[in-house]
């Protein structure tokens, strides 16, 4: 059986060596790997650019909201002024002032978030990086030693399989 293995390995080495599977796809893997890597870089750039746009927009919203609050405060204050200037009694004067004060204090206790929750999305560019790296490794093909090891192992497995089949055949024979 050892001779069989010997034969198989030698012949395989001679004839199949240039045709190992990993070597056959090295060119395609290089193209794909490069494209995925470029894609990864583009997405990373896009992600940063989108984040900048969204940060700017968020800042505009926050700024506008704070200006709105200032105007709204003045509006509210005028409303109170009108109410108390037309008040008929002391309670009618105190009540709007009390509400105004309470509103202000509540705001101090539970401040309204001045920052809009972040909406930026993270692209899984690390996964693309991993794919690009694998493709890059495949594009380099295998070393002669690795090819040799693969073929030896392949031969060993074939040999084992044949042996198993023979054993099975013997068992089945009368």
């Amino acid at each position, binding site marked *: *059986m*050892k001779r*069989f293995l*010997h*034969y*198989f390995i030698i*012949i*395989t080495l001679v*004839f*199949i060596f*240039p*045709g*190992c*599977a*990993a070597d*056959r*796809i090295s060119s*395609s893997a290089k*193209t*794909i790997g490069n*494209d*995925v890597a470029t*894609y990864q870089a583009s*997405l990373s750039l896009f992600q940063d650019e*989108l984040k900048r*746009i*969204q940060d700017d*927009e*968020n800042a505009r*919203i926050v700024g*506008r*909201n704070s200006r*709105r609050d200032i*105007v709204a405060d003045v*509006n509210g204050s*005028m*409303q109170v*002024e009108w109410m108390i200037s037309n008040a008929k009694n002391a309670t009618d004067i105190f009540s709007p002032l009390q509400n105004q004060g309470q509103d202000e204090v509540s705001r101090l206790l539970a401040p309204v978030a001045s920052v*809009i929750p972040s*909406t*930026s*999305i*993270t*692209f*899984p560019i690390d*996964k693309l990086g*991993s*794919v690009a790296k*694998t493709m890059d490794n*495949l594009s380099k093909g295998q070393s002669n030693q690795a090819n040799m090891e693969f*073929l030896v192992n*392949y031969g060993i*497995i*074939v040999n*084992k*399989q*044949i042996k*198993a*089949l023979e054993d099975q*055949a013997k068992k089945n024979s009368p």
Partner: protein
Amino acid sequence: MKNFDWRIGHVIAVFSVVVIMPLLSSCGVYLHDDNLQKHTDSSLNTYKNADIVATMKSALDAQKQLDKTELQSILEKETADRERAIKDLISTYPETRTEPPKRAIDRLIYRVDGRIKQLVGNTFDTFHPKDWLNNHEKIFDISSTTDALQREMDRLLIDYRADGGKNFRSCESFQVTDNESTDELKNKAQSLKDKCDGLELNSSVTKLQKLKDIVINANGEIANVNKQLAEVEKKIKVQNKSKSDTDKTLNDLKKVLEAAKTKDPNSINTEVNAAIKNLDSAIKNIDEATGFVGTKDSSLGATLAAIQFKKTSLRDIIAASSLPTTGGTTVTPATDINRAIVGVIVGLIEVSNTSNPPSIPELSVSLAFQDGLEKQVQAMLDALDEKRRILQDQQDSLLHELELLAVASDASQAAISNLKSVSCNPIGFADLFPNANCSSATRMAAARALSSYNLSWASGRTAARLDDYKITQQIIWQKLRVAQETAVARTNIQTIALNEVAAFGQGGIKPETIAAFLQAIGVAVIAGGVY
């Protein structure tokens, strides 16, 4: 047992040399590699799990939400500003105002005129609020009755003339006078005059349009928006024309090619070759002139036409590849020649290389690529349409604001003459309405002025302001849409490629297959008594 091994070894050697090795080395057959499969499978799975398309969609959804939040914040700020302005007009405090004017009605006129100036620009001096009053209401009422009114008018005119009426020249000049010969004729003249007045209302449509034409051609805010609108409409027109022109050019050239092919469907003869060259040259010229992906606005229509032409060619040939070759089908069969022609059309091969037609999978990848390009260009064209829609809405909103300001201005003028007496001279509108010394008509006019000003801001100015921001958002949105379509196309193509790589990794001859085969051969040879 030893002899048996030797014989097996010889058998394998001979078999390998004669049968297996040529197959392995030249026919695409290879030995399966578990380690390779592990890597190719894992790459495909990692790539699929990354799901860039879904992430891109989430990013765009987030942007949409943010844009919505921004519009909401603009709306709220505009509302606060408007309410602040209205409260300032109502308020009597402070009494010592210098700028804007002290009295409520003056302050309102100051604000209304200021805003009208911004809207109509250099035509402010010739702007007459009365011309703009209630045109919309009139138009709305009239639009459904115009035809009936005109028919009735024609009938009355015939009737009037039949009875001897001679005074009618036109509705504009017609007056009912005592010169009519009989009372009956005078009554008919009156009916005719009434109908004329009705028809005059109809001319409000034309009149309003004329007024609008004046302000949209001035140099105010409305004119600026109109200028942008005209530019976008022109661009859309150019795109549509360039698309239909390019469609025609390419289809004409394809007809010439089809005609040449009909004469000899089995070879690329001189005539077919010349037709392919012409088509290829036309496509290359379009691609070059348009910057290939239509980066120039003026070239989007032509780019779209070229892409759709390529897509149709690809789809036809790919669909034909899955059909039986016989059976009288009318589609173009996926022969080498037809694949070569489509390969040239989509730029996969050169005209000089038609002897190496692209495979169906290669054409499929090209289709995915063209599909992605089409969506990118379509996104850019959609953006133009959207911009036109927003600008039109903005112009309508500003014109609506102007009409309401005209009402406010007219009503303010009506109120002001009665607001100067000692007993009715309010600092704020808060003083005016409860003041019994101010006449009811004055109070009504002031109320209308205040209400129209408030409404002009709420429904006109605020809407136009929102449109302003929508246009800004839409510029970003167009870029995001194009990026999304690019990502979808690129992901599709890379997925196809990684699937092919994974299929390769899963393939190859597995050890057990070889073992079973060799064992069977060995047994057969021994049984045959070779040695």
